[in-house]
């Protein structure tokens, strides 16, 4: 019988939600400088498994980012090729 390799499960420490920690942070399309932190260099919304944002705030964040995109304050897409 072939021995099964014992797989090491990577225990990832969950990041705390920045909006739950600091209630003064306002998720709003008008506050687009803050929203830019939750968009990667390609202009895509960062997944909450990477950013650590909770489900409730991620829903609001996505909605406000889309509003800011429509107003030309945040890019839809960023082309990185030369």
């Amino acid at each position, binding site marked *: 019988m072939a021995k099964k390799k014992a797989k090491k499960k990577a225990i990832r420490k969950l990041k705390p939600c920045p909006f739950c920690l600091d209630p003064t942070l306002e998720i709003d399309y008008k506050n687009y400088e803050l929203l830019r932190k939750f968009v990667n260099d390609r202009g895509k919304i960062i997944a909450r498994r990477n950013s650590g944002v909770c489900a409730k705030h991620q829903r609001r964040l996505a909605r406000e980012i889309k509003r800011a995109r429509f*107003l*030309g*304050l945040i890019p839809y897409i960023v082309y990185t090729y030369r």
Partner: protein
Amino acid sequence: MGKSQLYEIVVIFDPHGEESDLKRETDVVQSLIEKHSEEFIGRTDWGMIDFVYPIRKRTSGYYVYYLFKGSKDTPALISSALKMDEKVLRYLIVRAKSNAVEYLKRKQQEAEQVVRTEEISEEVEVTEEAPLEAEKPTEAEELPAEETVAEAAPTTEEATTHEEAVVEETPPTEKETPAEEPEKPSEPEKPETEEKNEKTNESNEKTTAE
């Protein structure tokens, strides 16, 4: 009649043309909102903002934020009117949050402060123009001389301080040397300074020995 709601509109105006046209256009939209809404609360001008991507071949636009109360039919009425306006590049009507009124007040206060500071800075510039011109040339003459002295002196001083550090760490001796140093820059010739440094070293060693 339905329940009245708080709405906010951000309108992007085409900046192409004269400033007076732009102001007139923002006022036209305001009067339009006042006409259709139940209560017009206020507006703030965000000013010219560069677009992240071009909108209708424009690279920047003039943003204005309006806040008003209205029934559920008012957004549709306003949007149909704004669609006809050629000067409006884009607009966004959303139901405002409860803190929108506070935001509006804060922004209006900031705008007032900016206007005040601009007025003050303009007054200061007018008064300071003449004395500044008179002072500048004298500063330019003085600076080079100071720089040359400063450059010449530290080379020898640094060497002495390093040597002291190597010999022994004695804080009191280090304190003595800076008192003598200010005399050196007045004598630009190097050999004399070296002799002095040697003397200082000797004096330092004596102090350490004691």
